[in-house]
């Protein structure tokens, strides 16, 4: 059985990052839990990826012009980042503050949005929303560029309230009215983007946010009970003061980092599964002046987080990236990135292209019979590939335990190496049976490699491994 501190570190790194191989977990355990939390919350203390090398080998990552290439680039970043929480925040916010490729003709525009999520994603929620309201990808995606003085398009105004900041309601009550939606839309008139250079013949260029004062509705508006000559900035300042905003951010953080919650549309009438945890996060939201990093510090150091091991279904991106970090592959740019990233799509998560502005439904909704087969087959193929360095490292660590291993020791050793996985007693006894079925387990010779691989393959196919 893995050491408790080690198991807790494995949990932290799965949630705050994309998992880590055994030796990294050992090193971090030695460094300590709280110190690791601080390091994660301060990504700027860790080196950035060497983008010149990425772009040299992956030529299309310079102009960031294709969806598939950008899915590759992001996956590469998630696998190789030394700032796991920074990248995890980009994934988190992408799932909440959604733009989609189907309505973004230049993926670089989305990458610039993700950069904002990377660099501001742990900062103030107010600043993040202010940035989002000026983000060209978002302005285009939700039609705010089509919203004019006297002829508003409510799309952005509505989604800002419903999906990006307050949610429909809480504790059975509504968080905003239809009049609030209209007032918000009016306040954001004139917040638009420059006309784009068409795609032909040489490709796209970035568009920029601009404010057009002539198209801005300067009349008085009433929003969330306050009246004034509001512009978009004021609307966001009002939003972030609301209890609904605290609840919204707290529940999203809880759902992403702690345990699967019901989907967002149910939040008005379905209370949080752990109201005390949500209250702690809400309090910190106001105490810290809406600081996401401060909320996460509370979260990661809380008992509710530490006690939440294996209560979340891994997303497809977490599954694929975590597996790559485990097996130690794609540590430098190389061909095969496309096939790798397509598996994320096949498992139901088309990065940069969520199904709707609501993002992906998470938790058990990641799983159907098709996506489950993709998930199991992919992970089993990887951990069964004994030529990969991470798999070799697992084999060598187990080999170092002695010239023979008991079936139980093989099972425990493999579970530890996967990140201190917990399994039910039934599953454990089935795996022990499997380990015993081919006789004594000698660690010398290549047959041992195969037996470890076989055990890892059976483990990643279990229901337990679907969880993080």
């Amino acid at each position, binding site marked *: 059985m893995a050491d408790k501190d080690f198991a807790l570190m494995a949990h932290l790194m799965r949630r705050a990052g994309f998992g880590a191989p055994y030796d990294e977990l050992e090193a971090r355990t030695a460094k300590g839990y709280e110190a690791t939390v601080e390091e994660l919350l301060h990504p700027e203390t860790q080196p950035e990826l060497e983008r010149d090398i990425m772009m040299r080998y992956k030529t299309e990552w310079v102009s960031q012009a294709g*969806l598939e290439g950008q899915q590759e680039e992001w996956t590469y970043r998630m696998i190789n980042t030394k700032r796991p929480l920074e990248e995890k925040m980009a994934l988190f916010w992408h799932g909440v503050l959604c733009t*989609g*490729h*189907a*309505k973004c*003709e230049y993926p670089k525009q989305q990458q610039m949005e993700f950069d904002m999520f990377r660099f501001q994603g742990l900062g103030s929620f107010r600043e993040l929303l202010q940035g989002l309201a000026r983000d060209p990808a978002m302005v285009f995606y939700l039609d705010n560029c089509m919203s004019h003085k006297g002829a508003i398009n409510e799309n952005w105004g509505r989604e800002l309230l419903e999906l990006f900041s307050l949610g429909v309601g809480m504790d059975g009550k509504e968080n905003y009215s239809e009049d609030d939606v209209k007032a918000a839309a009016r306040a954001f008139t004139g917040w638009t983007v420059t006309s784009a250079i068409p795609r*032909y013949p040489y490709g796209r260029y970035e568009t920029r946010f601009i404010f057009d004062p002539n198209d801005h509705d300067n009349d008085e508006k009433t929003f969330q009970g306050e009246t004034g000559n509001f512009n978009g900035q004021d609307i966001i300042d009002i939003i972030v003061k609301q209890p609904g905003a605290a609840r919204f951010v707290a529940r999203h953080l809880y759902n992403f980092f702690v345990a*699967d919650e019901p989907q967002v549309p149910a939040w008005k009438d379905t209370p949080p599964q752990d109201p005390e945890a949500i209250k702690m996060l809400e309090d910190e939201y106001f105490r810290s002046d809406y600081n996401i990093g401060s909320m996460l510090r509370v979260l990661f150091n809380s008992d509710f987080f530490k006690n939440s091991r294996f209560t979340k*279904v891994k997303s497809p991106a977490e599954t694929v990236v975590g597996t790559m970090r485990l097996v130690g592959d794609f540590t430098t740019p190389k061909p095969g990135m496309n096939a790798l990233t*397509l598996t994320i*799509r*096949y498992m*139901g998560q088309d990065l940069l*292209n969520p*199904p*709707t*502005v*609501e993002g992906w*439904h998470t*938790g*058990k*909704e990641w*799983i*159907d*019979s*098709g996506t*489950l*087969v*993709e998930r*199991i*087959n992919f992970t*089993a*193929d990887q951990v*069964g590939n004994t030529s990969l360095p991470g798999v070799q490292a697992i084999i060598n660590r187990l080999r170092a335990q002695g010239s023979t291993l008991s079936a139980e020791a093989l099972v425990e050793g493999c579970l530890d190496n996967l990140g201190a996985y917990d399994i*039910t007693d*039934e*599953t454990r006894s*089935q*795996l022990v*049976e*499997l380990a015993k*079925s081919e006789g004594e387990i000698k660690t010398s010779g290549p047959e041992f490699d195969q037996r470890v691989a*076989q055990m890892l*393959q*059976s483990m990643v*196919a*279990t*229901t337990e491994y*679907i969880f993080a």
Partner: protein
Amino acid sequence: MTVTKKDPVLAVLQLSGGNDAMNTIVPYTDGNYVDNRPFVRIPSESVLPINDKIGFNPAMGPLKKLYDEGKVAIIQGVGYPQPSRSHFRSMDIWHTCEPDKVGDEGWLGRAVRDLDPNKENVLTAVNFGRGLPRALAAPGVPVASVGNLETYGVLTGIDDEDQRLKALDVFSRVYSPMIGRGGVADYLAQTGLDALKGADILSTAAESYSSTVEYGGDTVGQYLRNMVQTHLAGFGTRLLYTTAPYNSFDTHAGEMANHSRLWTETSRAIADFYDDLKEHDASDNVVLLVFTEFGRRVHDNGSGTDHGSGGIAFVVGDAVKGGLYGEYPSLDQDKLLEGDLHFNNDFRGLYSTLLEQWMGLDAKPIVNGSFEQMAFLG
């Protein structure tokens, strides 16, 4: 009309990338066609004429033959208002029937819900190809997605067959005890066992199949063959779906050679599909829809054609009353829509026809409204 007691089956072939309607059903005597296609034009003498105005691309001989036998409805000028020239967006619209907002439910996903409301058959709808097209996606609706019928299954990466069987044995043993415990683990275990069961059932399809029809080696041919195998196996599958891969019909350049190759393969595959069903006396209850997300620009770009609107669709089968439906859009400059063929036939009317007249479903909630139906069935 053929009276059939068998359940009707709808097969769908999606031509991804935007098939060039004008070089598929060619307006070969229209002077505008000659003027607009200096480089990407089918010579009039090689067109397979339907009448004195339009004809098939010369690579489409097998489909022309089926047309002459009265088995092919050509749906002309098909599209939707305010066309999008984005592959993703336009395909989404065809998949979800939501031209105004981004929808997440596919029309066929909704059809599966009506066909099998109690989720009794994991194989009511089967997609061939990896990943699920949005047309088949709907929350809570299970759809099998098969990358390769011959090798489909769980833990197929384990090469050693003994090892694999052992692993599958462990798999079912660790999944089974979770059933009935409630919660997410229960759901996951059920899903895992469904997947195993679906794979077991599907694996019998290829085993029990034999045919004298030899399909081409291309992906479309292979997947259409997989569809026939699945249909013949009698699993109760009502919807079969596949996609010509890699946006292949996106002929921005080198169109003459590429488009001709694509249609050589595709029309052969469609004819093989039909012949194979016929050989097995199973062609009476299958109708095949062939569609694409948009047509291409009227004017060529020197080597290919770019994204346009106003497309061509086909419906093929014994139950189909062959012929021309809708109008061939005018190529006159003042009749074009931003330089594209102007659609005159809403695809949701085409869907409604198939759903109501063929599948016997209520189309309105599936396609989000009432649209004029066509008379190509019965």
